């Protein structure tokens, strides 16, 4: 989401906190229906994941993902949210993992794909202000405080993840040169985000929700396992498979490459959900 109020500073801070708290209380009292609290509706959708390059490592007990995410946005600051298991570790790791895997596969990762190369110039950035939300109230409070707002159908995705015992993590990011033009969003690449959690099975990531800019996501995803596996990506075709070395161990790899749609897509030039709008 684009954060329309990224900074909350000085004496106004306590006022914003109080107002936001009241807004969230009204929303909760209204069964989380936005109709009586229309200010919670996001004003526009202007941030998306355009591409992702992920290395998934599964050793039989633990799932570890190393990622390079390429985002686009219109505005000055954004946040990237996603559900993770509550026992997950999330941190920024060294960037070399993707490079090392690509070196062994004689690949340039996302840059192998013409669809990705067409995106143009991408700025390297870093995530900051990692946050975890344990309740819907916490999450909505944060989104309202920063004037990001939310769309009801997108919020329901997070509601369902929380119902299943996941937490929602959020990372902020910002371009050095913000864009005001939806046709030319600022493109940003963050490498090194790592998430790790215990799981005896391979778990893939959910499809991103449409953020108003990129209907599709470009993927390069590589699965590393200690034993040979026939696990396949839910949607992406298999590009190649074989063996490689990673962290001084022999791994089997399977690389999946392609394009997947976002969730929650709407027609071209159709505005997102807004108040007094039913269909």
């Amino acid at each position, binding site marked *: 989401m684009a954060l329309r109020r990224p900074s909350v500073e000085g004496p106004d801070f306590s006022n914003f906190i109080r107002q936001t708290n009241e807004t969230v209380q009204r929303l909760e009292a209204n069964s989380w229906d936005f109709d009586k609290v229309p200010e919670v509706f996001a004003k526009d959708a202007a941030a998306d994941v355009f591409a992702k390059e992920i290395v998934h490592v599964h050793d039989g007990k633990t799932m570890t993902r190393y990622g390079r995410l390429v985002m686009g946005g219109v505005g000055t600051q954004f946040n990237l949210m996603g559900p993770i298991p509550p026992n997950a570790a999330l941190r920024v790791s060294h960037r070399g993992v993707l490079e090392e895997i690509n070196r062994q596969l004689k690949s340039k990762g996302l840059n192998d794909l013409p669809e990705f190369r067409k995106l143009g110039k991408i700025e390297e950035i870093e995530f900051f202000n990692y946050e975890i939300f344990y309740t819907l109230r916490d999450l909505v409070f944060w989104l309202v405080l920063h004037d990001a707002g939310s769309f009801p159908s997108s919020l329901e995705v997070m509601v369902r993840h929380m119902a299943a015992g996941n937490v929602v993590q959020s990372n902020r990011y910002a371009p050095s040169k913000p864009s005001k033009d939806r046709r030319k969003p600022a493109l940003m690449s963050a490498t090194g985000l790592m998430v790790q959690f215990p799981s005896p099975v391979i778990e893939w990531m959910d499809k991103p929700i449409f953020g108003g800019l990129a209907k599709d996501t470009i993927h390069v995803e590589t699965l590393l396992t200690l034993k040979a596996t026939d696990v396949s990506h839910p949607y*992406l075709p298999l590009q190649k498979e074989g063996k490689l070395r990673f962290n001084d161990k022999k791994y089997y790899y399977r690389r999946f490459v392609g394009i997947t749609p976002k969730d929650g897509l709407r027609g071209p030039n159709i505005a997102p959900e807004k108040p007094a709008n039913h269909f």
Partner: protein
Amino acid sequence: MQAVSESIRFDLYVRGEIPFSLSGSLVTTASRRDKDRTAFSRWHDSQADLIRLDLIPGKPGQIRARIMSVDPQWGTPKRVVHQPFYATQPNHGLNIHGDTLWATNLLFGAPLEVDIPQWKPTRILRPMEPDATSPQVSSTSHFAWSLDHRYAFYHQSLLTQEDSTVRAKALALVRIDTRTGKERLWTLLAPAEDSDLRGANFHSAFYFEEGGRKYVGLLRTGAILESLAAHPTPAEHPVIPMTASCIWIVEITEDSSELQVSLLPGIRELGYLALSHLDVDASGANGFILYANFKQADVSEETHGSNIYGEPPADVSEHYSGMTVEAINFGMVLRYEKRESKNSIRVFKRAYDPGLTSRGHSWLPINIQLDYRRKRLFCSFSGFRPRLLPRHIARAYPEMAVDPLKIRYVPPLLMRFDADTLLPQYDKDRTYLSYTEPMAFCIAGNDLHEYVCTFSTETGLRIYRADDLSRVICHAVSPLLMNWKDTHFRPDPAHMVFAQSS
């Protein structure tokens, strides 16, 4: 007839707790779709993967999956489809009695009988024999059951290609005796006021008794097919609009080989397109209360061609050829009570209002089930994906189809209703609804400890207490559910059933 199959088994990763009343198996029918989204095949025709999940209660308990791929080479390069008509591709309905499953297609082919403990097909139920002029059959997806559950009833007929449409002929009602496995057939005589057999296909059936007489109700879908085989090219084409669905009522008489059909009054007048799935309370042998989904969707068509925005499939990455058709507008849930003295109808129909998500919606109802005490009704609604509604289908229904400029994405929904009033069981904590839920669900457990299980290959299995859909008590996943080899993925199944351990 026999079916070819192959099977695999593996464990799911379970988070949470499997309650003790869920000792048993969940069974679902998945279909299979090519990851290459330009590869065309109709949604009816996709290969079937039957999934059995054996639940062993505990915290976390254990879930073992077994997947049976039916006729796995049909439609693959190994068996090029010179003969486009298969005997069975049971990728939709599930009918269970004891240790036996009868799995069915949405429309085409014959039910496949499966021995659940052995997890092997035993026979294909095709009493109607296709021939050169009628090369395919249509069967009811969801059977009717006698009150003592000894007999199952379904419709089967032959399908014939005419100049511009497909027509049913030799309509039969089939009864299976679950004790002996024997079948009996009756010829059905269509009612005079609904004698056009182009739309004589029946997705679901129900059984009831009244005044000491026995009846079967058949939900006439009314799907009008242009072509018995898949279109040679997935291009836009003229669509013959469906007529409004209706319900055929057949009195069962043992001493006659022909049964005259009458129409249940008041259904056709509702003016919706396609009756599909149902549940029924026929206890007491004095009529029935029928709960049925009424879709605003041309279920005889499939997703291909340009969408309502004029975008070609190549530009719509969520498109995969032959996927489940999108609705043209929101549908309804129907409650029809028939007693000797009177009939009454209640409906729930609602647009999606993003500002009032607590009210739910009725976009493309899929699944419907009463709880054990028949006091609560659970329904799943598929929602709407605007970019997947083909332009040529919307054009066939100019008065009904949604305005492309006003419509947006509508999220899927599972909702609990009061079975008597057909109103959602509203509460402040939203325990009565769950958005972004898979379509396949079933009520499981017993009347004291009742649970709702939802399933998709991608999301996995979620278990809720039936009175609280806001809190998952068990979530189980495996990547092996999602794909068939590297070439195909398994989209969300529509239905699931629970078979209690005996």
